[in-house]
């Protein structure tokens, strides 16, 4: 056929036939490629971020010094490396002052990822440091200044060596959030270790070798290294290094994938609707062409190549829009990002193009393919039925495509199922409800005023078409509500998890006689704190009388391990009992409540016996309950809880956590002077990091929501347009017969508003069910019904559909009826 697809497309474009189809295709590609590129880049940024918590990409840890040859091998492979050594040691200042500190010695390149921070005076302004202390110098923890009564420039001694204090050590990227052996930090140069003479064979020390490089080189190096690692040498990667941002980000990712999947479904529906309307409007076109000699093959070729051309152009534009979307976001938030996100690569755009192809083949092609079957007899008899009616086969293809696209995109069957369940409920309930109500309207409508009669007559005349339309509107509104609900509960949960007064400092090692004083001092400064929890260090020695092995291999689930335990008569706040019962108050029996993960690792449950060593005294306790708790709450949390009287004879220290505003850091100085032996752990930097990431991800979620709302609106526009021709025709006849503008517009408004009402109701029911499934199965969140969604769903449904409907038909009252009748 010599009439080219380009010319036909150009003609259709001029005729305004392609707008919604093109927009829906562009949107599908933009949503998929944009979100995919966005998550890829965000993941790369977060991976870098998590590497910072390791201060490297890979780390080997051991209680013994490791061969320097490994570092040499790394260097030969182009991998950067560094060494650290951490050990407890007394630090002296003059004759009088000394304190047990946690000393960390680092080589020149440390840290390989992230940065050290320091301040020029204790608790002063935090500054990023290019490198650690030079040989002969130390940075010491802010509170050591008070404990040792020294200032910057003074001298302190570690073992046999003297050092000059040059700064206050504030944070290290790989600073452990665990409290085990947490003493105030002294940071020194690795080369000074020998001079101190404190590290002897058998000392309790931790050597680390740090490596950083490209992923490919690292993988090869790790392969080389793994064969050489001994029993006491553990390789760590990102997964072990990251503190509690994990689940928030997992959920954010689930949300983005959900949003992407919904975007694809919405765009798919819009494409199908637009293609169907396109095909209906082209029936006469094809009939004329066939009467002039076009075969069904040539018609198929013409429309097939047009569609392909359209697909190519829309894919290119969609990829561009998707790229622009994520680039704009990262551009906007570049300054707040802790690390620069890496490139997304081509994959997101390949996924976008594949989506476009699938949408075209499964949603747009079926109605267009049937154009080839259009009867040429329509040139003589326009009342002949069109061939664009959907068959069951089309719906099956569409459903399969939606399912596969959602799965391919989210890689999550549960998520796919939750959305499909919501859609299925919408379709079934929608058809039943809409058909019943639209039929029932006749009885009510007959006695009503003329606008109402007109509207109800309109609703009933197109009963089946309207029922289908209600289902389509409801699907779009439902998907938007699902996203809105999930987004709201996600952001709410994050905000609840990290409220502005989240405890950002911990106090440990509070002696029983200091408890009252500490409490008073916190109160006098109006500092909100958690309860003071007693803490005892214990060592798990046996399970059900079976002695556990003493090993450093942390991958082994059943081994001797040290933990901090507490006592309580009541279940600690924020804990949830999963099995067993809490003990009666004042019991003196040796009972213990175990955290769920701890119990799982040991393979124990209620009724099992655990043997501990507290100091040098053994204690055997029976498990009476298993608890879950939120490790990311930044509140004191314990693996093991005992009844108070069971531990009465053991020496305990106390701990608490509290929130300190940025301007109140000076409090720490006076506090440490009053309670020099109390350990204060500053978590504010970590919490700020978590909060900043959560803020960025929240902003990303809002952006994605806006894009998906655009996709949903497009479905509504396509849905309204699908019925506009018939409504316009009838309204034009009514106008020709003398109907007033207000009657026609009023009738149309009521008709569309009624459709919106049904759709809104239906969408809200289905959305609540979908969200329930999503939150409980997929996102691991607790479900709570949202009453506000009912007025929003129904109100938005009515307003949007009535508004769009009247807007689309506005020409019926602004153009002369004769022009409309001739055109239609």
């Amino acid at each position, binding site marked *: 056929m010599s009439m080219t697809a380009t010319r036909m497309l150009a003609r259709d474009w001029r*005729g305004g036939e392609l707008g919604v189809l093109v927009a829906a295709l562009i949107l599908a590609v933009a949503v998929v490629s944009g979100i995919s590129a966005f998550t890829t880049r965000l993941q790369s940024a977060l991976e870098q971020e998590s590497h910072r918590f390791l201060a490297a990409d890979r780390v080997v840890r051991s209680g013994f010094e490791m061969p320097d040859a490994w570092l040499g091998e790394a260097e030969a492979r182009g991998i950067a490396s560094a060494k650290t050594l951490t050990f407890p040691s007394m630090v002296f200042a003059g004759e009088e002052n000394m304190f047990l500190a946690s000393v960390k010695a680092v080589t020149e390149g440390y840290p390989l990822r992230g940065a050290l921070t320091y301040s020029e005076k204790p608790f002063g302004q935090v500054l990023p440091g290019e490198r650690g202390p030079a040989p002969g110098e130390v940075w010491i923890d802010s509170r050591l200044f008070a404990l040792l009564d020294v200032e910057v420039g003074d001298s302190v001694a570690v073992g046999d060596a003297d050092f000059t204090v040059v700064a206050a050590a504030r944070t290290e990227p790989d600073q452990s959030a665990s409290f085990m052996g947490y003493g105030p930090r002294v940071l020194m140069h690795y080369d000074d270790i020998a001079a101190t003479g404190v590290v002897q064979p058998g000392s309790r020390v931790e050597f680390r070798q740090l490596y950083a490089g490209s992923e490919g080189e690292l993988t090869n190096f790790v392969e080389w290294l793994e064969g050489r690692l001994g029993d006491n040498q553990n390789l760590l990667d990102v997964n072990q290094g990251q503190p509690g941002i994990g689940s928030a980000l997992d959920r954010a990712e689930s949300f983005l994938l959900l949003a992407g999947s919904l975007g694809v479904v919405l765009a798919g529906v819009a494409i199908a609707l637009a293609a169907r309307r396109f095909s209906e409007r082209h029936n006469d076109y094809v009939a004329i*062409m066939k009467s002039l000699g*076009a075969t069904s093959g040539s018609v198929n070729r013409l429309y097939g190549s047009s569609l392909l051309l359209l697909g190519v152009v829309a894919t290119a534009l969609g990829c561009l829009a998707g790229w622009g979307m994520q680039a704009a976001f990262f551009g906007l938030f570049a300054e707040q990002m802790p690390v620069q996100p890496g490139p997304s690569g081509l994959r997101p755009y390949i996924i976008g193009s594949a989506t476009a192809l699938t949408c075209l083949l499964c949603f747009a092609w079926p109605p267009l393919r049937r154009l080839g079957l259009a009867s*040429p007899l329509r*040139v*003589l008899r326009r009342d002949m039925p069109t061939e664009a009616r959907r068959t069951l086969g089309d719906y099956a293809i569409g459903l399969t495509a939606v399912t596969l696209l959602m799965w391919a995109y989210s890689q999550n069957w549960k998520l796919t199922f939750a959305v499909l369940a919501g859609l299925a409920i919408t379709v079934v309930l929608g058809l039943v409800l809409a058909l019943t109500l639209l039929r029932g309207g006749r009885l009510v409508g007959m006695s009503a005023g003329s606008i109402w009669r007109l509207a109800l007559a309109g609703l009933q005349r197109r009963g089946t078409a309207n029922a289908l339309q209600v289902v389509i509107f409801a699907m779009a509104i439902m998907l938007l509500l699902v996203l809105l609900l999930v987004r709201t509960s996600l952001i709410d949960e994050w905000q609840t998890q990290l409220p502005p007064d989240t405890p950002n400092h911990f106090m440990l090692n509070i002696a029983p006689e200091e408890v009252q004083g500490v409490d008073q001092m916190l109160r006098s400064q109006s500092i909100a704190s958690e309860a003071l929890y007693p803490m005892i260090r214990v060592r798990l020695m046996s399970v059900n009388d079976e002695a556990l092995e003493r090993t450093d291999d942390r991958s082994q689930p059943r081994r001797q391990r040290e933990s901090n335990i507490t006592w309580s008569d009541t279940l600690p706040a924020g804990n949830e009992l999963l099995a067993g019962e809490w003990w009666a108050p004042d019991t003196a029996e040796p009972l213990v409540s175990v955290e769920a993960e701890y119990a799982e690792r040991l393979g124990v449950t209620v009724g099992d016996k655990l043997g501990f060593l507290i100091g040098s005294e053994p204690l055997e306790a029976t498990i009476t309950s298993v608890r879950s708790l939120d490790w990311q709450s930044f509140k004191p949390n314990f693996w093991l809880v005992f009844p108070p009287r069971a531990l009465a004879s053991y020496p305990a220290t106390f701990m608490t956590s509290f929130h300190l505003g940025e301007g109140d850091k000076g409090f720490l100085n006076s506090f440490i002077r009053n309670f020099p032996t109390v350990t204060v752990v500053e978590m504010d930097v970590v919490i700020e990091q978590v909060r900043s990431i959560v803020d960025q991800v929240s902003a990303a979620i809002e952006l994605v929501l806006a894009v998906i709302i655009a996709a949903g609106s497009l479905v509504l526009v396509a849905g309204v347009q699908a019925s506009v021709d018939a409504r316009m025709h009838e309204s034009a006849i009514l106008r020709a017969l003398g109907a007033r503008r207000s009657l026609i517009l009023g009738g149309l408004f009521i008709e569309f508003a009624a459709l919106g009402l049904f759709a809104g109701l239906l969408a809200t029911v289905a959305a609540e069910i979908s969200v329930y499934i999503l939150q409980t199965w997929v996102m691991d969140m607790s479900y709570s019904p949202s009453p506000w969604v009912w007025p929003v769903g129904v109100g938005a449904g009515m307003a949007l559909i009535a508004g769009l409907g009247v807007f689309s038909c506005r020409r019926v009252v602004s153009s002369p009826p004769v022009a409309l009748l001739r055109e239609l």
Partner: protein
Amino acid sequence: MIKAENLLKRVPMAGSELEILKGINLEIKSGESAAIVGASGSGKSTLLGLLAGLDEPSEGRVVIGDTDLSQLDEDGRALFRGKHIGFVFQSFQLLPALTALENVMLPLELNGQPDAREQAEHFLQRVELTDRMTHYPRQMSGGEQQRVAIARAFAARPDILFADEPTGNLDTRTGSHIVEVLFELNREQGATLVLVTHDQGLAELCERRLLLDAGQLVSG
């Protein structure tokens, strides 16, 4: 020559069948002009559709020249129409998204004629629409649209021209002008002309009149 043998057309109607044409036999010679006349609902347009190969009969057959249309499938009939048949319709049937020139070019392009544009321009000139070539159907009057349709029908130089109420949508004066153009071009090309009309005057311009009544040919 067009030959119809025992043409029967039934359509399903609410559980039963309605017989629209009840065994039509006729012959129209090459170059002849024939008018199919009859009351509304007598089956005129149905007969035209069958003779032109736009529809299939329930029984009987239509033979044009050496070609038995009932032996062809829809695609075969489409190719046959493209080569041998032209149409003029009551409602003009121009494609609204195409200009006058593009509408006339369409059948020529479908036939793969390389000089489609020149031919189309020539025929639009013949129907005196040189200055309307780039206009869309909606920008033209009914008479102008029908002249475009006539130009389109003759541009493909068909052997047979079928016209369905060609003046049905036009006023008397415009209608007469259209009829003049139609017959003039038909004479020049020597095509067979078969038209359906209510217009007695138009019917009398044809060499033969075939009168249909309730699906049966009663004279002609």
